[in-house]
């Protein structure tokens, strides 16, 4: 049974083959698709943002009397619908893109750990010594979980934002005059309240996901640091053993 110290900082084990762990093997192939997906999501966000800016330019290019009229033209209402709805879910999409890119960084760090593990074993075997390796410390166990939890928070946030964006689309499908005149207890006023209520916490929620991924990255780097320290010990041990110390 592993001691607390081994759980926290990693113990020692003997490896038969110079192989990365399953997670490290997966990470070797996953960082490229994650990076590409993240970049594509960010690029799509830019395009949607430009479209939204064009709609806002058209909308605010009209006098207040036209925008606020009960019989506002359909194109004006369409613009407002698009602007209000997009403003709800676009930040969540952008942060999902950032989250995917940060996950690609996490996968690259896991891949580096795999290279250290396999390389260390190869070197010890080449010297004809017992191939010892560091057992995964707690940081190594936590960082993949933090990355996945962070991505899940970002995806859940985007799904909720898309639903609220749909509700905003319905609300702003009415003219401003109708929205302003919504009576107490009406479905329109309820929906407007729901949109504005959800927006207050949908803004900080994706940052929890980003924070989880960043904590995961710091744990991954700390794991590399522990591997580096282990390899320093092991190299000196091998030299001392060979010299008969």
């Amino acid at each position, binding site marked *: 049974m592993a001691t607390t110290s081994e759980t926290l900082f990693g113990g020692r084990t003997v490896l038969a083959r110079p192989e990365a762990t399953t997670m490290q093997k997966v990470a070797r192939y996953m960082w490229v698709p994650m990076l590409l997906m993240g970049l594509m999501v960010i690029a799509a966000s830019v395009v949607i943002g430009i479209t939204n800016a064009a709609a806002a330019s058209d909308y605010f290019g009209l006098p207040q009397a036209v925008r606020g009229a009960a019989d506002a033209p359909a194109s004006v209402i369409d613009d407002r619908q698009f602007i209000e709805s997009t403003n709800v879910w676009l930040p969540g999409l952008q942060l999902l893109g950032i989250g995917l890119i940060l996950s690609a960084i996490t996968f690259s760090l896991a891949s580096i750990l795999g290279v250290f593990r396999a390389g260390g074993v190869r070197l010890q075997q080449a010297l004809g010594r017992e191939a010892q390796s560091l057992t995964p410390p707690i940081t190594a166990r936590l960082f993949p979980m933090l990355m996945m939890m962070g991505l899940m928070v970002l995806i859940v946030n985007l799904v909720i934002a898309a639903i609220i964006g749909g509700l905003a689309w319905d609300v702003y499908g009415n003219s401003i005059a109708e929205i302003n005149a919504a009576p107490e207890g009406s479905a329109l006023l309820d929906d407007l309240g729901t949109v504005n209520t959800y927006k207050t916490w949908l803004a900080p929620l994706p*940052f929890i996901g980003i924070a989880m991924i960043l904590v995961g990255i*710091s744990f991954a780097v700390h794991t590399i640091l522990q591997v580096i320290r282990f390899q320093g010990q092991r190299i000196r041990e091998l030299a001392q053993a060979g010299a008969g110390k």
Partner: protein
Amino acid sequence: MSYQHRVDLIPSPPIQTRVYPVLIAVGFLIVLAALVIGVALAATASDVFDNTKAVRDAALPGSSLLSDQSGLAAVPLWVQPFTFLGIGFLIAGIFTVFWGLLRSLREARGAAMLEAVPALLLQPTGEPKGGE
């Protein structure tokens, strides 16, 4: 062969390994606090939008409705930069642990290699040994 760590063979862990957990904890707590403020603000928003536009616009100075509307407009303006402060702490934590990694590369592994590799090259190599 002993499976105990030989920490006597390398310098003690760099100070950065003790500093970075503080930075990431502070950063995470700030981001979490921003979410809590957002949730609290949702209750305020719900109270405000329970009223019609006419009632909201007619809110009198000193009334709770006007105070709620003011809070709803003002609080998000500082909560977002506050969230970014938290993200800043988290990135500072990552930078700190990278700094510690650099020191470990130089002081633990690099120094050990410099000392041990010439000795290892002079030793005869045996048959490769694996484990269980």
